[in-house]
């Protein structure tokens, strides 16, 4: 009798495993299919869409948001959220711009360092004081914006013309054979590759997923939940910092009011990619797809050139919702 029981179990287990795999594949594919459709549409409709210049532009323009979305991916995988990223981009930007005169390295380290430290504060308050991430990072979003304004006395900080190396970071390119890749894009790709490795091949990465799966279970299984929490928010801060430095370098200025609302764009990219806000499922590949999908939509708005700003707003919301609904339907199959 008992043997019979076990066989039934494992038979149905296989079926479920298959279904689970197919489901998660489709879920990711939802955004990918949309991305491909949008790209084909654009290529057919706009003559200049497939030029190297346009495509490089799209990537470079979104490299900073891409870094922020990458940090957000880690945070969301743990089931958390980080609303402070936009403000951290601004803080890092003004600090880096202010110090750009002392050399690229100093500016880079200081900018990323400040944002990392603020991210660490987020993580520490969430982990130690046990306050919900939404409210902690909301407070940080307000406070960091205030700090950026205080630090700059509400003015824009310019990068000295002499700071060539620093300016080069955001504007320069490397020539790789027939292609020339802007530095920010290079940074973006490297960051995504590294993050992929971290998520899939390090304990920190796996524990990030575990936390989003069930924080209580992870805690009872002996995971140091606090440390992982600290880690993801610090990482998110660091990546926002890197984005801020790149932004300052690209614009040649550090603006205390830069990157307002980026947190929502980053969350949208992560979710459109297929990562669940409840955590535990998703990954960097999904986020990249989500990022590019949203980027192409903006690119199309600009290529189209006549859609009124209000209709653009309406369309953005509708498209966001449509992609998520389609994904939702697919994953129910």
């Amino acid at each position, binding site marked *: 009798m008992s043997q019979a029981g076990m066989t039934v179990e*494992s038979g149905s287990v296989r079926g479920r495993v298959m279904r689970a795999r197919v489901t998660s594949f489709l879920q990711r594919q939802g955004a990918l299919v949309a991305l491909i459709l949008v790209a084909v549409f654009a290529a057919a409709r706009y003559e200049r869409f497939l030029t190297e210049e346009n495509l490089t532009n799209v990537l470079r323009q979104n490299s900073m948001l891409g870094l922020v979305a990458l940090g957000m991916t880690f945070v969301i995988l743990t089931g958390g959220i980080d609303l402070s990223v936009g403000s951290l981009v601004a803080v890092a930007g003004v600090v880096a711009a202010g110090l750009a005169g002392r050399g690229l390295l100093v500016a880079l380290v200081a900018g990323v360092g400040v944002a990392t430290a603020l991210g660490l504060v987020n993580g520490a308050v969430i982990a130690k004081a046990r306050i919900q991430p939404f409210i902690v990072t909301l407070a940080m979003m307000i406070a960091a914006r205030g700090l950026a304004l205080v630090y700059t006395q509400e003015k824009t900080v310019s990068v000295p013309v002499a700071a060539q190396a620093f300016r080069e970071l955001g504007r320069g390119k490397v020539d790789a054979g027939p292609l020339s890749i802007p530095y920010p894009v290079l940074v973006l790709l490297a960051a995504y590759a590294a993050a992929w490795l971290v998520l899939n*091949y390090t304990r920190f990465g796996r524990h990030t997923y575990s936390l989003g799966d*069930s924080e209580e279970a992870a805690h009872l299984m002996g995971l140091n939940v606090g440390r992982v929490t600290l880690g993801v928010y610090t990482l998110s801060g660091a990546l926002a910092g890197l984005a801020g430095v790149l932004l300052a370098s690209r614009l040649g200025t550090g603006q205390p009011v830069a990157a307002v609302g980026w947190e929502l764009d980053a969350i949208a990219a992560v979710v459109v990619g297929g990562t669940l806000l409840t955590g535990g499922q998703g990954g960097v590949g999904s986020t990249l797809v989500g990022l590019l999908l949203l980027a192409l939509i903006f690119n199309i708005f600009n290529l189209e050139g006549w859609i009124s700003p209000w209709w653009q707003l309406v369309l953005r919301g509708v498209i966001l919702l449509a992609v998520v609904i389609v994904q939702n339907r697919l994953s129910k199959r």
Partner: protein
Amino acid sequence: MSNEPLLRMEGIRKLFSGVVALDGVDAAVERGEVHALVGENGAGKSTLIKIMTGAYRRDGGRVLLEGREVNFRSPEDAQAEGVVAVYQEVNLLAYRTVAENIFLGREPRRFGLIDWKKMNSDAGAILKRLGLDIDPRAPLGSLNIALRQMVAIARGVSFGAKVVVLDEPTSSLTEHEVSILYDVIRRLKAEGVGVVYISHRFDELYTICDRVTVLRDGKFVATRPLAGLEKIDLVCLMLGKRREELQRQGATAFGEHHAAAEKKETAPLMRAENLTRGRKLDHVTVEAGRGEIVGMAGLLGSGRTETARAIFGADAVDEGRVYLESKPLNLHSPGDAIDAGLAFLTEDRKAEGIIPELSVRENLTLAALPEMSKMGVVSRARQNEVVESYMRRLGIKASSAEQKIRELSGGNQQKVLLARWLCKHPKFLILDEPTRGIDIGAKGEIQSLINELAASGLGVLMISSELEELVEGSSRVVVMRDGRCVAELRGAEISQDKIIRAMAEGSAAGEPGAAGASI
């Protein structure tokens, strides 16, 4: 040094927001011993082991590991020292693979990166050793509760731990799986590991445990060797009663009521016809009369819960219909079923039963709010009246009706949920594993309550994995297998043997279920 026990707890004290949960509890585990921990629901067993593994902070007392005082601040610390627990509520990671669940926190690495190949093969080996055929790469969530429980146990024993705690590990295991577990425990024992074993099932204790520590109301009662301790004496220790106060016949508290209900030949009170739902239910037909308790048996995953949910309108069916008092019901949601007079006590208290942050009062009256309110405004007086009467009647132990239900022990939570339905005065009650994880005292109370209800004319469908309960409690037993009714036993035919045969092999003795073979 050598006569110091492996792990000793002394004078443990724990308060939950001021309320004493544990007070002066002593317990010790020797090397190579299986030590049982028993007590009524809410006696403090789970709390004690959570203190032992650092999941909770204690408010007093000492914990000594190999004679050395330890102070675990988290389960992580405890694991590092070789104290590992498998907790009562299966607490694993649903989206992660089986291998990841087993190795979480100590994933094998090469050059700093996780070595997936090794992790999967090691996990496979561990599972194989436990006689389990599970793909280590499967997401845990794709396994059923029993297999998840086995994975949790595999994780627990794979640590090479000194002390392994198992908190009600068998509550959702089949007999076969239980016997695998016994083998594992014996192996651990031979290796000198100390095992703490919590269970409400006495036969298990006598099979596998060496000594027993009894807790009552958060206090230490006694530690005794199990050999030579009579069952009835153990129950006396748990309940704090004298031997002569406990006069009962049979293993359960079901009387011999079903003689009364048996001969009624009226139309059935509830009839579910040809329920079909995907591959999970295949033309299931069940019926029950007024005052009748119909048992439902089956292996894990055989479709009993699915049947119950379908009758209750919780899941949509592809085909089939439910009749109550011969009237067809139009069920789109549980709300419709409740309005018609059905009630359903779920098997998964935590996920589908309690609203953890709400009080006993609010949980108890949740389903009955429409009756207790006029124009949507709830009468607090009616509420209090009902709550007080049911708390008294069912002997619900809580500091007050306003205590959060999450703070109650499992058994008391179950009673509140039962009361949630009883105060609706339903016509037909579906009970899914009503006594799972319930202590022997409360179990008896619940069983006799079910009996009483049936005697007063309520129809009951009782799903249970405890054969004793089915045999003694039901006037008819429907046996399910692979989503079909494969047998129906009545009256004198009902025996554990026959049920087991039907569960495993399809239709055994007794005529087949009405619809089982109807296609």
